């Protein structure tokens, strides 16, 4: 028996980073907003407090903050010819759950994409010619430009208080920052974090090789900061428990520390936790959403009517919500037609390990999630790809975030997997190794996509999302090339042994890489190749907005959160100043 509730103006599906920012803005503008969060409510005090939060087994290994995969996993296969099987344990990527969403367990690495990234197809054609790319690649322009998004990047960074050093303010290059970045309108809200030893070593080696190292932009803050919402964040103390953990220090920008206190104080907003949305309901013509149906933690079913539905879940869950609701045409890789689930992409991660003698003390456990040093000289299109046979690149950096020993105990290649040889190598190298991350872009490709699984179901009886993905040749070539550059930097640090591990196929769900899943509800200017328009509004059902990294037509060389924050404020602007004044399609198809 479904209980029908009183209609509200707006329903937000998922109260994470996007959901809490959107809800705050619309509630403040006078709209009645209901936020439906499938997980539990949780706050810095008492849930995130030390020392219980500093438990590697519970949070890193047992994935305490992650989406409940016993009820709601995904299925996976490398290729369409295989049978997809459930990801029975999370490893490769870790979507969060609960109030604050995945942002609660992020590292705080807060990048912008470059102007080139938003017009990737056009710029690639212009610079390298029409025939440069593998014809299977389906990269495309975003339908929005960097220049349009810049004010919203700025607003997001100032909400978070991001610590960094600008390299390009209004076209003027500033020493110490990233000279490759697209122009920003002003300096970061707070100065860069202190540099750890690995970062300092990397800086010296990269400078000697003629590259341009800069401090990692961090939303674990270098100093106290009061954001435009009036909320004060504290200084990060480099505890080394950031990614996969919640911050007990009020030093990491997460919804609990940047926006929820304001949102939850607004009587126009109602938070309902433990609510699993089953589908967005449509009218009989399937042209308008009428609200959502959800099941609460006690198993009771409700219909929540609403004039506007915003899905602000984790990227892959946004895709699944549209597929379960019948919004937009599902993608078919055989014909290349259809859009929902199309252009699923990821991140192409490689590593370089530099091993030192035992008199070089690294202290890897002293770190924040974003206190490293890196270069963008081999990221995006910052180097000439002529003759290389690939597009894209990676940032290379000493961006180590922790020394938590169950997961972090680097040993040189050739070390036995167990026994005395393994143990001695762990003891010898734990405190004397520098790791570089090579954080690579990910092109979209015709064969990689998301759809609904024909066999496996969630705890509510609905089909699971099916992921079909392997690394495109383009990205494997990129990983080889960029890793060779990382190895050169490793050697230039004076390490006695340097081991590069370029990402290799096949993609496996058994090894953590990143939680940077993108695509599937791609934005764009052509309804035949995008799910939402440039304002993240559904082409098919104009009172549904889909905000998430699911909008990215392909993924760039950087962590996706900064760009998602910019898109969130960009969309809020369109909602407040355009859509809500005259609810209709903002772009004619």
């Amino acid at each position: 028996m479904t209980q029908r509730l009183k209609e509200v103006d707006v329903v937000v599906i998922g109260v994470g980073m996007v959901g809490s920012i959107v809800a705050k803005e619309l509630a403040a503008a006078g709209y009645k907003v209901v936020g439906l969060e499938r997980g539990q409510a949780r706050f810095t005090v008492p849930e995130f407090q030390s020392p219980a939060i500093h438990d590697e087994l519970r949070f890193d290994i047992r994935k305490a903050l992650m989406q409940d995969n016993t009820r709601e996993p995904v299925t996976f296969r490398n290729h369409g010819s295989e049978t997809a099987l459930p990801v029975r344990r999370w490893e490769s990527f870790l979507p969060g759950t609960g109030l604050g969403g995945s942002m609660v367990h992020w590292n705080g690495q807060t990048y912008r994409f470059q102007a080139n990234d938003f017009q990737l197809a056009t710029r690639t054609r212009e610079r390298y010619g029409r025939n440069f790319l593998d014809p299977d690649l389906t990269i495309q322009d975003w339908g929005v430009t960097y220049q349009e998004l810049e004010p919203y990047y700025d607003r997001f960074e100032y909400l978070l208080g991001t610590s960094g050093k600008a390299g390009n303010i209004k076209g003027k290059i500033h020493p110490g920052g990233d000279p490759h970045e697209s122009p920003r309108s002003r300096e970061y809200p707070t100065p860069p974090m202190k540099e750890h030893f690995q970062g300092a070593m990397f800086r010296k080696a990269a400078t000697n090789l003629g590259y341009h190292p800069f401090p990692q932009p961090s939303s674990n803050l270098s100093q106290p900061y009061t954001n435009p919402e009036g909320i004060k964040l504290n200084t990060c103390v480099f505890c080394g428990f950031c990614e996969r953990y919640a911050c007990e220090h009020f030093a990491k920008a997460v919804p609990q520390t940047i926006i929820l206190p304001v949102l939850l104080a607004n009587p126009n907003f109602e938070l309902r936790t433990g609510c699993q949305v089953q589908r967005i309901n449509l009218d009989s013509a399937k042209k308008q959403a009428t609200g959502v149906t959800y099941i609460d933690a006690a198993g009771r079913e409700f219909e929540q009517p609403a004039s506007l539905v915003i899905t602000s879940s984790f990227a892959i869950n946004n895709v699944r919500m549209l597929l379960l609701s019948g919004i937009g045409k599902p993608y078919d890789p055989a014909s290349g037609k259809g859009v929902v689930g199309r252009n699923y992409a990821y991140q192409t991660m490689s590593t370089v390990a530099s091993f030192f003698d035992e008199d070089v003390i690294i202290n890897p456990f002293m770190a924040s999630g974003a206190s490293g040093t890196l270069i963008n000289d081999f990221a995006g299109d910052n180097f000439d790809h002529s003759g290389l046979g690939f597009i894209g690149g990676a940032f290379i950096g000493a961006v180590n975030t922790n020394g938590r020993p169950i997961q972090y105990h680097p040993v040189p290649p050739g070390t036995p997997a167990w026994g005395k040889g393994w143990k001695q190598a762990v003891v010898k190298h734990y405190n004397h190794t520098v790791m570089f991350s090579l954080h690579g872009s990910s092109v979209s490709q015709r064969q990689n996509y998301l759809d609904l699984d024909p066999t496996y179901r969630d705890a509510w009886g609905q089909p699971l999302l099916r992921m079909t993905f392997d690394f495109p040749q383009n990205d494997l070539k990129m990983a080889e090339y960029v890793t060779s550059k990382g190895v050169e930097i490793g050697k230039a640090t004076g390490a006695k042994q340097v081991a590069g591990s370029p990402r290799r196929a096949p993609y496996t769900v058994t090894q953590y890489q990143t939680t940077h899943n993108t695509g599937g509800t791609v934005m764009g200017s052509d309804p035949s190749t995008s799910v939402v328009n440039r304002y993240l509004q559904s082409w098919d059902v104009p009172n549904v907005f889909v905000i998430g990294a699911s909008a990215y037509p392909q993924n760039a060389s950087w962590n996706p959160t900064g760009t998602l924050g910019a898109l969130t404020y960009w969309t809020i602007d369109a909602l407040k100043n355009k859509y809500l004044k005259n609810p209709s399609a903002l772009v004619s198809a």
Partner: protein
Amino acid sequence: MAMVQLTRRNFVGSIGAAAVVPATSMLSNAVGAASVTDGPVPAKPASADAKPVYLFFNAAEARFIEAACERLIPADESGPGALAAGVPNYLDKQLGGAWGAGERLYRSGPWVAGTPSQGYQLPFTPGELFHTALRAINLDLEKRGTAFDSLPVDAQDNYLKLLEAGTLDLDGVPSGVFFSLLLGMTVEGFFSDPVYGGNRDMVAWRMIGFPGAYADYYEAIDRHGVKFEREPISLAEDGRGHIHVHQDIPANL
């Protein structure tokens, strides 16, 4: 059971090749080593005789687990091994609790053997998997007239390599799957917080220099290359009662 390459001749050959070190003597060595590691002597030193109370493993399983863990992470001059660190006790408590029962494991069928990149696809919970595999292993060794813990260490290593290679069918559990779970959980037990029953007295953390749950390096982070000398801190020390309270954000909004 397929492809059993371990023969009596292998065992005998191994005995000739290496000194026999019974697990009990490794345990005493290990504790001896722990007492001379740097830092103050713990208030209640771990006793070599303090046998864990096994709630999950039966006696035969426990004998295998104790001996096998100590081969995976042996006591040596760098410090105690898995046995002295209490890893078998960690395994027992994990496997007897929620994790052993399938915590965080999607358990709906159909059950299909997948590709390596699709990960674990067996219906066994970790607890079921251990019981099934250990019974098969102990029966296999019994047929050969021996038991794992009475083998010389080289022969123990050879048998573990056989499991690792994945060539044995342990009553439906591929031996490689069992081995990688055993190894993964042994490393977990060695390095996880002592509140979980392994890493006794934080021996593994002392060995590598990890300070544990201790959590403020603001003053130390830019003193590059300086060894961080202090006792590690366990969750059990309760952060010395310290709670961070925000002046503006109330608890439980």
